[in-house]
């Protein structure tokens, strides 16, 4: 899922500084699952904003709502009406939601309430780890299912660098060296020769370096 993290309240306050009525808008998609922008986060963010503004002598009125998803136009449709009573919207969805609101409703001033961080898994309560970087050209078939693009600090494609020591990455000792893991996994399977193969320079266009990416599936398109 997409992992996000609540922005520090002062940053949100700065963005909505001129307004007196603001809608705090959550999303029940990824950000709800990773506890950054769902129903349970909308309320405290709104309360914190109100409390801070009250103490600064410029009370703020907030509305609170959470949509099923902010990345689909049909779920966003009610927003036009909802937002009428407010001068601005603070969206707790990932950057996708904020962008789509901005695309669809040019008249709505929308501000992000979270920082969108990475694609990750939730291996333990309260902890999320990056597992994929969406590089658009998956090589997990070669690397025993472990991604060196997302999980190696130098995105190496031809094995561990000289900083791999005792299975740990030189960047931070708590980070495992993913190439060491790949090596072990493949040697257990007797498939080490996969690593002996030269991995040529990667095409980074699918990773976004070829400009904004889009995907189309014609059989699903209407008209």
């Amino acid at each position, binding site marked *: 899922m997409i992992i996000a993290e609540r922005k520090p*309240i*002062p940053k949100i306050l700065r963005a909505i500084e001129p307004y007196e009525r603001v809608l705090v808008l959550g999303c029940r998609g990824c950000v709800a699952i990773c506890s950054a922008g769902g129903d349970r986060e909308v*309320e*405290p963010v709104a309360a914190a904003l109100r*409390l801070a503004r009250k103490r600064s002598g410029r009370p703020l009125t907030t509305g609170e709502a959470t949509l099923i998803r902010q990345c689909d136009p049909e779920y966003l449709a009610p927003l036009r009406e909802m937002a009428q009573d407010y001068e601005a919207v603070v969206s707790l969805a990932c950057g996708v939601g904020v962008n789509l609101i901005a695309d669809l409703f040019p008249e709505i001033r929308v501000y992000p309430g979270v920082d969108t961080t990475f694609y990750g898994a939730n291996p333990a309560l309260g902890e999320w780890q990056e597992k994929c970087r969406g590089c658009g050209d998956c090589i997990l078939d070669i690397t025993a299912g472990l991604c060196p693009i997302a999980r190696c600090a130098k995105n190496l494609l031809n094995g561990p660098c000289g900083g791999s020591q005792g299975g740990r990455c030189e960047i931070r000792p708590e980070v495992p060296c993913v190439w060491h893991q790949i090596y072990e996994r493949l040697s257990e399977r007797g498939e080490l020769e996969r690593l002996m193969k030269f991995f040529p320079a990667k095409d980074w266009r699918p990773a976004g370096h070829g400009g904004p990416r889009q995907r189309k599936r014609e059989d699903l398109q209407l008209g």
Partner: protein
Amino acid sequence: MSVTIGILCCHYTNQAGEEDFRLIPGTVIVKRYPCSGHIEVVDILKTFEEGAEAVLVAGCEKESCHNLSGSSRAEKKVLGARKILEEIGLEGERVRFAFLPRLDTGPFMAEVKKTFETALKMKSKS
């Protein structure tokens, strides 16, 4: 100068009534919950919005929580609220958590008094 404090507590932490709270020379907002585990960060923040200078969150001692981990969760929620308070420039010490023996009003009121002292200190600072 009127000082307000908020008390969010598990119902089973005390039997304090109006008489008891009358001993506190200020306004006391009391919110009782069936278990402190039910108290959310937003409840704490809202109590501050209602004017509390300091808030006490009280739950049962760890081993005597009806719901096993309710009070431990509440303790963590207090940390969450504290983080937000500090972000917006309020002292973290304004909110505190206390593990209390069940249905014993004495220790509960002692914590309430401490909370009131904190509130006084905060009020005089600002």
